[in-house]
């Protein structure tokens, strides 16, 4: 897999050929606190860049994860339905949310170092 990149809205994505895997950053999960419920999109659903894809319910608040580029969902992480807390424990690994096929490539996300400066 390619390097993970981050958005200002705290999603991460990793791009492999024409597919992206998307989740929320460790910083985002930390800010949200305990995640208790995740509403995932359906396979086949299309999203434009910036459109809300996933709803994340934490005890503190509800947050959304936005599409980092135009894409079509090809796989969702079913495990999050019964174990949403995986996003807290492993946000950039087992806590991935969706995989999608890229429709319009926009690889303008920040590398970790830049993101780290952004959040600090």
């Amino acid at each position, binding site marked *: 897999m390619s390097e993970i990149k981050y958005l200002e809205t705290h999603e991460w994505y990793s791009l492999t050929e024409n597919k992206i895997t998307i989740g929320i950053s460790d910083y985002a999960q930390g800010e949200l*606190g*305990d995640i*208790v*419920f995740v*509403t995932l999109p359906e396979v086949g659903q299309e999203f434009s860049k910036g459109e809300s894809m996933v*709803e994340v*319910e934490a*005890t*503190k608040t*509800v947050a959304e994860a936005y599409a980092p580029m135009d894409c079509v969902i090809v796989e969702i992480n079913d495990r999050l339905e019964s174990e*949403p807390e995986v996003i*807290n424990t492993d946000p950039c690994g087992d806590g991935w949310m969706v995989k999608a096929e890229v429709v319009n490539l926009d690889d303008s996300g920040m590398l970790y170092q830049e993101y780290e400066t952004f959040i600090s």
Partner: protein
Amino acid sequence: MPDSLVSPLHNYHTSQNAKFIDFAGWSMPFSYEGTIKEHNYVREDKGFFDVSHMGRLEIQYNDIAILQTLICSDIENLQVGKALYTIFTNNNGCAIDDVIFWKFQDKILLICNAANTLKIKEHLITYSISFNDVTNSTALIAIQGPNAIQIMKGLVDIPDSFSCLQNDQYTYARTGYTGEDGLEIMVSLDYVDELLDYLKSNNISPCGLGSRDTLRLEASLPLYGFELSDEITPVEAGLKWTITNKQPYLGSEVITEQLKNGPNKILKKFEIDTRAIARTGTKVSAGESGGVVTSGNFSPRLQKSIGFVMFENQPSTDLIVFDIRGKLVEGKILKKRFLN
């Protein structure tokens, strides 16, 4: 950001990597290790909360007769050494604040919500009740959980449930806001470190306001500004049991009328069999009745979504439909408490 007030335990919270929230002008810990973890400490074992942001006013005992005309409960006939949960009402019988009194021989300690401290002070001044505001010269710490009392026995004499005691260092009561047994201890700044050391040496974990909120919700306890406000009476909030004052008090005619004929709006508990949270402000319908969620969150113990909803009138069915950001989700009204 304007300077927030901080608790005498602020440095300790920082040392524990607490996440802070601004609450009623105070910067207080929201969580340390995570809300659900802290929730479970209190439900299953023990934990402590810094609630020093809550207002603490010492009232002269001889003002008790005036006090009786401002609240819906009978404090005059309450035994000395007892604690009392009650509501200051306005002329419409609605809640100015819900508070706890600790009744001592020489004084009555009033503990009010942080957001209402100023309002309560002004209210007392209006009715010529003199008080000593000790909010900034003390800390207030709540030690809660099934194992809390066992540990606290090593520090203080344990009062009966809903009773209060005081010694040279601590003024405290066997009260709380979590549905668990425990103590709430007021301590002067001179002794706060000693108390903190005792809690630390007994491995009592700090818990933040996040878990305090999920615990109080699971325990079916109201929160001012949500289930109670200056537009909601104790009858409407399902707090009839607090209405024990037989003498006239502010708004008592409205409350008596509601007790007789039933209130217009009515607070109900609900549960949803999924984890979809119906948060504050979520619109609901139950048959012909409409309502709005006052508080809603995930219950770590029940592993489902729970909360309170204020209906415009008594609903004819227990089935509720929630409009959660455009998505319709079904739930039901609960007649019993969330936890048995």
